[in-house]
C-alpha cells in the first residue's frame, strides 16, 4: 500500500494530475442543480458505452460489402456474448438518442442557453446532429437488405438538392450503383470521422461548462441581464455553490447505473435487432424502414403531397439547423423559467406530440400495400351466390385487397370497402374501377367485362348490416 501511495505521489507530482483535474472535479455548481441536470452526463455515459461496445464489435466485424453480413451473423449467432454485445450497442444507441434529446429539451425549457452560455448551446447542437449521424450510419453498418435500401433512400433525398445533389447522391452510394465501396464509406464515417468530431466537441462542450459554470434552476422573476449576470452568478455560486464531486456527481452516477443496467438487461432479454435478408440490391422482396428514431421522418415522406416533397426534403433539415442555431441569438436575455415562457413549452409539446404520432403512423405504414394479404376467409363469404363468390376471389387475386380493407382483411391505403354496397351504385363502382381515381390505378386494361361484373356483384353485397 505504502509503495503504491508513494508511486502515485511521484506520478501526480511529475504529471500534475490532481493539480489539473482536482479543480475541475470540485468546481462549484449551484445547490439547485439536482435531477434535472443528469441528462447531459447520461448522454456522455451512453457515448462511452457506444465507444466501448463498438470497439468490441470491431474485433469481429468485417467492413466489406460482400462479407459484413456473414460477420454480423457470426457475431450474433456465433456466441451468446456476441449476441449480448451487439444488443448493448443497439440499445446504447437508442439510449444516446433519447438522452441527447432529453438534454436538449431540458436546456431549452430552462432557458439555460441564454447569456453567457450561447456557445454551450451551439456546440451542443453540433453534437446533437453528430449523434443523429451516428444513429443513421450505425443502422447502415447492420449491412442487410434494409441497410442497402436505406442508403438508396438517403442518396435519393440528397439528389433533390439543387446543383450539388447528383454528386452528393453518387458520393453517398460510392459510385453509380450500390457496391463494394458503399459500405466502406459508411464504416469510415461511423467509426472514424463522426466519433472524432464527437470527441472534439465533447471536449469543447465540457470546457464551456467549466468556463461559464452550470446554470441555476430557473426562477420566475429572475431574468437574465447580460450587464450583470456573470457578476451576480459568481457572487451567488461562491456563497451557496457546492463542489460538483461528489455533491452533484452522485446523481449522475445513479442515472448512469440505471441506464447502463437497462441497456444490459434489454440486450440480454430482447437481444439485438434481427438481421434482415442479405444485402442483395437485386432482391425486391424487401420492406425497408428506418430504426425507430427516424420512423417519424419515414412517415413524413409518405404523407407529404408530392409537389411539396422536394422542398421539405431539402428545407426541413436546413430549417431545423437554422432554427436551433438561432435559438440563443433570438432569445439571449430575459426570463428563464418555463412558466414565463409559454412558447418554449408549446414548442416542446408540439414537437413531442408530432414525433410520437408520426412514429405510430410509421410503424403502421397505412400507406403501404399489404403484400401478404390472404384470400377472404369463408365467414366473410357466407350466403353469397356463385358469381359474387368468384368476385370475392377476384378482389384478392387482382390486388384490390392490397390497398382496400374488407371486414378486417387487407390494406389501408385506399378507402375501406366493408359497406361500399350501401354507398355506391353498380354504375358508380364500374366507373371508379375502370377509370381509377386519386391514388387509385385504372383497372380498365387488367379486367375483362366478366371479371369486372363479378367484382361489382361481390362489392354490392357489402352493405351496412
Amino acid at each position, binding site marked *: 500500500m505504502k509503495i503504491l501511495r508513494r508511486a502515485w505521489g511521484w506520478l501526480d507530482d511529475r504529471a500534475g494530475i490532481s493539480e489539473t483535474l482536482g479543480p475541475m472535479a470540485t468546481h462549484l455548481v449551484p445547490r439547485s442543480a439536482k435531477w434535472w441536470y443528469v441528462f447531459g452526463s447520461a448522454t456522455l455515459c451512453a457515448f462511452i458505452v457506444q465507444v466501448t461496445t463498438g470497439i468490441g464489435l470491431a474485433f469481429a466485424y468485417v467492413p466489406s460489402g460482400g462479407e459484413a453480413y456473414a460477420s454480423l451473423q457470426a457475431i450474433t449467432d456465433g456466441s451468446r456474448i456476441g449476441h449480448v454485445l451487439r444488443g448493448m450497442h443497439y440499445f446504447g444507441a437508442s439510449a444516446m438518442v433519447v438522452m441527447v434529446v432529453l438534454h436538449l429539451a431540458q436546456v431549452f425549457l430552462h432557458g439555460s442557453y441564454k447569456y453567457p452560455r450561447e456557445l454551450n448551446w451551439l456546440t451542443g447542437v453540433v453534437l446533437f446532429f453528430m449523434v443523429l449521424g451516428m444513429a443513421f450510419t450505425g443502422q447502415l453498418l447492420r449491412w442487410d437488405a434494409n441497410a442497402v435500401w436505406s442508403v438508396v433512400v438517403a*442518396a435519393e433525398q440528397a439528389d433533390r438538392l439543387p446543383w450539388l445533389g447528383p454528386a452528393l447522391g453518387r*458520393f453517398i452510394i460510392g459510385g453509380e450503383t450500390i457496391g*463494394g465501396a458503399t459500405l466502406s464509406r459508411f464504416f469510415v464515417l461511423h467509426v472514424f470521422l463522426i466519433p472524432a468530431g464527437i470527441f472534439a466537441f465533447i471536449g469543447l462542450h465540457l470546457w464551456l461548462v467549466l468556463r461559464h459554470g452550470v446554470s441555476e434552476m430557473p426562477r420566475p422573476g429572475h431574468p437574465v441581464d447580460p450587464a450583470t449576470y456573470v457578476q451576480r452568478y459568481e457572487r451567488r455560486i461562491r456563497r451557496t455553490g457546492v463542489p460538483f464531486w461528489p455533491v452533484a456527481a452522485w446523481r449522475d452516477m445513479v442515472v448512469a447505473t440505471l441506464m447502463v443496467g437497462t441497456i444490459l438487461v434489454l440486450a440480454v432479454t430482447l437481444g439485438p435487432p434481427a438481421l434482415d435478408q442479405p444485402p442483395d*440490391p437485386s432482391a425486391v422482396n424487401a420492406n425497408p424502414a428506418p430504426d425507430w428514431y427516424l420512423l417519424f421522418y419515414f412517415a413524413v415522406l409518405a404523407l407529404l403531397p408530392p409537389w411539396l416533397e422536394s422542398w421539405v426534403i431539402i428545407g426541413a433539415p436546413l430549417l431545423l439547423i437554422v432554427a436551433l442555431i438561432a435559438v440563443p441569438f433570438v432569445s439571449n436575455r430575459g426570463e428563464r423559467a418555463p412558466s414565463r415562457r409559454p412558447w418554449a413549452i408549446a414548442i416542446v409539446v408540439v414537437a413531442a406530440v408530432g414525433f410520437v404520432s408520426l412514429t405510430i403512423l410509421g410503424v403502421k405504414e397505412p400507406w403501404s400495400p399489404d403484400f401478404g394479404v390472404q384470400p377472404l376467409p369463408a365467414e366473410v363469404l357466407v350466403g353469397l351466390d356463385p358469381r359474387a363468390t368468384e368476385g370475392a376471389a377476384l378482389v384478392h387475386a387482382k390486388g384490390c385487397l392490397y390497398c382496400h380493407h374488407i371486414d378486417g382483411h387487407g390494406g389501408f391505403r385506399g378507402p375501406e370497402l366493408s359497406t361500399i354496397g350501401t354507398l355506391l351504385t353498380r354504375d358508380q363502382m364500374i366507373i371508379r374501377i375502370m377509370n381509377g381515381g386519386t391514388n387509385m390505378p385504372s383497372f380498365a386494361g387488367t379486367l375483362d367485362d366478366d371479371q369486372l361484373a363479378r367484382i361489382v356483384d361481390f362489392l354490392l353485397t357489402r352493405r351496412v348490416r
Partner: protein
Amino acid sequence: MAPEQVNGDRPDLRPRVDEGTAAGASELPLRVIPGAEIRRREMLARLALALAGITTAMVAAPVVGFVVAPMFKPVPRLWRPVGRVEEFKLGETVLVHFEDPSPVPWAGVTARTGAWLRRTGDASFECFAINCRHLGCPVRWVPEAELFMCPCHGGVYYKDGTVAAGPPPEPLHRYRVRVSDGTVEIETAPLPLTIQ
C-alpha cells in the same frame, strides 16, 4: 517585483513593445523589446503558419485525392447477359439480375443489380429498373393486377412503368435491352437518382 510576475514565481515573458516614450518606460524594466525584434517575431510567426499550411496540404492532398478520385473515374456501359430468349415467355414480367459494370473484388452480393424484364415480341423486350422513382425502394411486380407496387410509401405504376398512384414524380426508369445471338442482354446504367 511583484507586478511583473503573474505566474507565481515565474517571470512574465510576454513581449512588450518599446513605445519609445520616456513616460512609464522606466517602470517596465524587465523586458522591453525593440521594434526590430517585434518585426522579426511577426515574420517568424508568419513563416511558421505558412509552413504549417504547406505541411497540411502535403498530407491532405493525397488523402482527399484518393477519396474523391473514384467519383471522376468513368464507369463503362456494358451489355450484361440475363438469359436465352427462349427462357422468357411472351408477355410475362420477370425479375432478372446482372453484375455491375466494374465491381470491386470484395463487393460480393452487393455487385448485383436487379431489373424487371418483359418479353413483348419475338426478339423485343422491355426492361424496368426496380427502383421506385419516389425514393428508390424496390418495386414489386403484382402479375394479376398488372401493377408495380412499392412497399415504402405506396407508389404504384402501370405495366408500362407510368405512375398509377402514390408519390412518384415520374415513370420507372428503363434499361436498354438487346438480343445478341439468342441471348438477352441489358445495358448497365447508374442507379436512377436524378429526376428528369
